[in-house]
């Protein structure tokens, strides 16, 4: 059983919804990322989604775009991200880590090398935003050969046939994009999310994570009542940016960790009041 399967199954048995915070690796400083990952776990994260910086993050809103730009400027590469996971694994063997990014850095490294190094570093799942199932055969084979879970998106625009194509390829969990738009947008429609989750569950037993528009504990709680996992990205990354800008020098790291901890705790608390999806 993969680390992801184990974690998500155990949460389900306990009647809890998983909390998956997202941060961009290397933002605002590569030296902070691993500490932030540990801090998020201490504050109640069940899975960590680590954004791999890319020069052209087409599906991201302005907040994560800026984070990606900051990290690219610092020279943070795909290899560096995997090194960070490896360092994280020295102190945390259990919390699953999913890399989320774009295909090109993986293309350049080569699918086989990428999958091998990722597995060795302790990565558990890989979500490649611009890789739909139609083009994913080779990458998926490489990931599966190294027991990594390929994570795919389902969108509000996905037809029944597309949902089936996605669920046939995916393992670990399915990531439902809660709105038509980029990450961090503000127009999520809870009724639609609820309907779509019902629809997707007809085709798969895999856990369902929901993300893209969840920016506060209240929304997280409402989504937690429907989904198996709640992903929170932009709202967290925005805090990191604000705190970093306010504390340019000494104490930046501590201030960021404190702010992220507070926010993740508040998400955790809100989600746990709801309990697991029916």
């Amino acid at each position, binding site marked *: 059983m993969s680390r992801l399967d184990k974690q998500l199954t155990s949460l389900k048995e306990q009647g809890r919804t998983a909390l998956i915070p997202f941060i961009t690796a290397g933002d605002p400083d590569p030296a902070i990322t691993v500490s932030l990952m540990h801090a998020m776990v201490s504050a109640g994260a069940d899975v960590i989604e680590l954004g791999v910086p*890319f*020069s*052209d*993050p*087409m*599906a991201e*809103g*302005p907040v994560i*775009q800026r984070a990606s*730009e900051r990290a*690219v400027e610092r020279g943070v*590469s*795909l*290899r560096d991200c995997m090194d960070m996971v490896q360092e994280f694994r020295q102190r945390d063997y259990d919390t699953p880590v999913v890399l989320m990014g*774009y*295909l*090109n*850095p*993986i*293309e*350049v*490294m080569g699918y086989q090398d990428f999958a091998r190094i990722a597995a060795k570093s302790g990565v558990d799942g890989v979500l490649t*935003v*611009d*890789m*739909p199932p*139609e*083009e994913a055969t080779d990458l998926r084979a490489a990931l599966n050969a190294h027991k990594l879970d390929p994570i*795919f*998106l*389902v*969108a*509000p*625009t*996905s*037809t029944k046939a*597309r949902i089936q194509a*996605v669920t046939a390829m995916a393992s670990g969990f399915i990531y439902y*994009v809660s709105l*038509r*738009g*980029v990450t961090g*947008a503000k127009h999520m429609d809870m009724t639609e999310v609820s309907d779509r989750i019902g629809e997707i569950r007809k085709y798969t037993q895999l856990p369902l994570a929901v993300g893209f528009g969840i920016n506060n504990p209240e929304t997280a709680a409402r989504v937690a009542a429907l989904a198996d996992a709640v992903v929170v990205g932009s709202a967290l990354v925005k805090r990191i940016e604000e705190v970093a800008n306010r504390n340019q020098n000494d104490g930046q790291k501590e201030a960021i960790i404190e702010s992220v901890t507070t926010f993740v705790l508040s998400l955790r608390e809100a989600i746990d009041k709801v309990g697991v999806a029916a």
Partner: protein
Amino acid sequence: MTYQLPDDRGHFGPYGGLFVAETLMHPLKELNEAYEKYREDAEFQAEFMDDLRLYVGRPSPLYPAKRLTKKWGGARIYLKREDLNHTGAHKVNNTIGQALLAKRMGKTRIIAETGAGQHGVATATVAARLGVECVVYMGSEDIKRQAINVYRMKLLGAKVVPVESGSKTLKDALNEALRDWVTNVENTFYIIGTVAGPHPYPAMVRDFQSVIGREVRYQLSEFEPRDPDALVACVGGGSNAMGLFYPYIDDEHVALYGVEAAGEGIATGHHAAPLSAGRPGVLHGNRTYLMETDDGQIIETHSISAGLDYPGVGPEHAWLKDNGRARYVAIKDDEALAAFHELTRIEGILPALESSHAMAYGQKLAKELGSDKVIVINLSGRGDKDVHTIAAREGIEI
């Protein structure tokens, strides 16, 4: 025709394809279905051809450049005068076609990316004519160097949105247009300006631009009792080049030359020549040659011509390079400028800086091939938009 690419999922050999986030997969399928339906539809094709004739002013002339031929002292030079199209470049052939499709698909809002502003102007033009809302994304760096085109778009009623992310040029404008599309897919049609992007754009834009090569085929027979020996076109994304090349693709005796921007020289790294000096990767929905770092980050390009300043290239060109059907060369800023002046003074035609790259290579090739050969050069656009850039570069204040 024996050449039958792309396959039904948009692949040209290993290139092309459909690499976008899930939200865009269904809209792209709908677009593909609409395109497949109307490309065979007599009424659609008739309306397209009427628009090209009555509104764009096609066919554009094929001009025998006799003085230039004499001056260069080599092959006979013919210029395909896309600069004489309405709005001043080949770009409008494609926007007319996509606008007709948008209308049939019932879309009420049109978006586009633009670099030099030519595609933005051509899009704003067709949107004005359809009476629909139009938003054009343009890098803030490009807005600075193409001020006249920005104002033209505004006069036409388009909203020009400056893009401040990344390198603030064409590639970032494309990212931003994709972000808009993903947000407004229900009512919005995205008119991509070149043979790049996810399937079906590379094939669709090529097909709309192929009117260029089809006209050359019959126009040349007025002057020459045979096929041309070589076709030459500049390559930014590659749409004017594909439009000229495609109708000749099965005619192996016709050599195809795509001319990229070498900027300050390939060796300096300051260029925009992915086919000459890049390697394969995935960007903007397709697999193609890219300019990128060893870590797979896309790098900033440089060219004096905003329309060639793009780190990728249409996937069909990547395939034609690998299989040897077309050859790709690169021309430096200085060489393009010299060609600009040459054509202006010898033939009285101000070419766009993009097209000046094709002219500069045409001159080299004319000498190489010798006087019994025939070369057709695509004059993809007129140079009025570049007059400020050229003056500034030469230290002249207008």
